[in-house]
């Protein structure tokens, strides 16, 4: 990475101290997914330390989102009855995630779900302020400080001046950046992102990935579902590769992201090319 990482504004610092660098922020023990009697993803272990970015890759329906929800301690929450079953344990820091109260967990980890369409009119600022919810009391209203945090998050996403706009009038990519800004305003220690690059143009794809690297450099952990193995190779320290038939490969991104493994996982031949020292995977 030759470009300098973007500087994080002070407003977006995580208020939760993290004094045990040796302990993983997130630990999955024997985590696995089952769907309709078959195995979608064999049990595996995963540790995410402060400073690390992890990418989850796999074909459609391989269980990437279900896995991410399980890592957030929210498995089965989004889909209703048909979601895959989850086995295994997820720990946030020193305790199993089930021991965390919902509000405390929300201050520790943030989740960017796949985009849901806005149904009602809402301003961009209101939408980003929703991310402040876990930091406010039952009767609390958003303070000037919360507004400053929301504005800093919008500025990080290149959305200065969008505060008063109606969410429904924005393009798909702009709505995605608003959702990312809401997650930044939540200021969690651990970021879990389901396809954060959806709808984004190339410039913003790279900008978001560099911002996530900055967050990692600030002592946060990042787990993201990605589709492009080249971007995963460039920005992720570790990769979880699902093949949708039970197979799962977990490890350093350089070791997991080989043309052979990827071709098998995606069911399509891929060729690895190197340009300027960076790997690109070309579909044949």
């Amino acid at each position, binding site marked *: 990475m030759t470009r300098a990482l973007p500087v994080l504004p002070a407003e977006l610092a995580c208020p939760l101290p993290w004094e045990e660098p040796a302990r993983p922020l997130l630990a999955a023990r024997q985590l696995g997914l089952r769907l309709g009697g078959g195995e979608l993803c064999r049990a595996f272990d995963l540790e995410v330390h402060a400073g690390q970015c992890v990418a989850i890759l796999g074909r459609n329906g391989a269980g990437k989102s279900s896995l991410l929800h399980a890592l957030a301690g929210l498995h089965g929450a989004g889909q209703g009855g048909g979601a895959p079953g989850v086995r295994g344990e997820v720990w946030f820091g020193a305790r199993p995630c089930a021991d965390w109260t919902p509000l405390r967990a929300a201050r520790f980890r943030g989740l960017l779900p796949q985009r849901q369409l806005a149904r009602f009119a809402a301003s961009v600022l209101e939408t980003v302020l929703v991310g402040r919810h876990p930091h406010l009391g039952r009767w609390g*209203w958003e303070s000037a400080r919360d507004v400053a945090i929301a504005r800093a998050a919008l500025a990080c996403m290149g959305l200065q001046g969008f505060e008063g706009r109606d969410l429904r009038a924005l393009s798909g990519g702009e709505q995605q950046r608003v959702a990312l800004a809401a997650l930044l305003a939540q200021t969690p220690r651990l970021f879990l992102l389901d396809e954060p690059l959806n709808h984004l143009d190339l410039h913003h794809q790279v900008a978001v990935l560099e911002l996530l690297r900055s967050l990692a450099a600030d002592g946060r952990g990042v787990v993201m579902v990605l589709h492009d193995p080249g971007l995963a190779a460039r920005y992720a320290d570790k990769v979880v590769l699902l093949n949708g038939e039970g197979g799962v490969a977990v490890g350093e991104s350089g070791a997991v992201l080989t043309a052979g493994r990827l071709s098998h996982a995606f069911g399509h031949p891929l060729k690895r090319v190197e340009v300027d020292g960076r790997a690109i995977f070309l579909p044949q």
Partner: protein
Amino acid sequence: MSSSSSARFVRPAVALAALALAALAALAWALCAGSLATTPAGVFAALFGNGEGMLVGVVRELRLPRALACFACGGLLALAGTLMQVLLRNPLADPYILGISGGAAVGALGAVTLGLASPWMDAGALGGALAAMLAVFGLAHGDGSWTQTRLLLTGVIVAAGCGAVVTLMLALAPAAQVQSMLFWLMGDASGASRPWPALAVLGAGLAAALPFGRDLNVLAHGQLNALALGVDARRLRRGLYLLASVFTAAAVTLIGAVGFIGLVVPHLVRLVLGNDQRLLMPAAVLAGGALLTVADTLARTVLAPQQLPVGVLTVLLGVPVFLFLLARHSR
């Protein structure tokens, strides 16, 4: 920074105060208007002291209970609509969409069909509403997933079934009963003499819902988002369903299935105030109460001595107001 943050509270405060004044004005007008003409001073004297004998009876025993009943029902329906729209994340949701008014109609019209006296009509409406609420809740709960689509479909199907039963009863009823059945179905406040239970439900319900205003804002962004932000979405949605159902049952029992208020008042308030549920809920109560009170006063005075069903008036008043706001907003 502090001036801009206090500015954020000025506009809502002004809007709420204006709505409260409008609600008071609507109630005052309802007490003054009628065949026995009087002035606000006369009404004040009749309410609180030594007015003339005839007026005291009319104001205290006829106009006041009726005006309060209309205010309570308008507020209940508007609040129920606001909650339903968040619960189903659907701008087209209204308090009747999940079959509660259908159940109430079957109960009330069933009482008429059986030739029972009018207190039984109220009891039938309440029983029917609660039965529909429990049926939809139980059926939609089914496998425990309780998704929005499943809840909506179950409610709509139960409502359709109730609608068919109502039509059947109307078709089979002797002509003498049809008039009172139709008035009930359109909403009619002329028999409303005991507004206090509905007012109590409204007050207690609003007090129960207000602390969860910000949770509702989060839930409006989707269940998964809400869970990730620390909101117990499952329990919140159950509470929403129960509250909205009880509000609707209370309103429908008191004055029948008045249409339109529960659908349009939340949107009307949203166009002016935005979608913050903490403001939307009290504002919807005030606006819905005022609108129904005004509509009912018109319903009993425009063609006096003939009384019109208030449900028709709410729609006739609401449609132009809503279209005006919509046109102004889109510009």
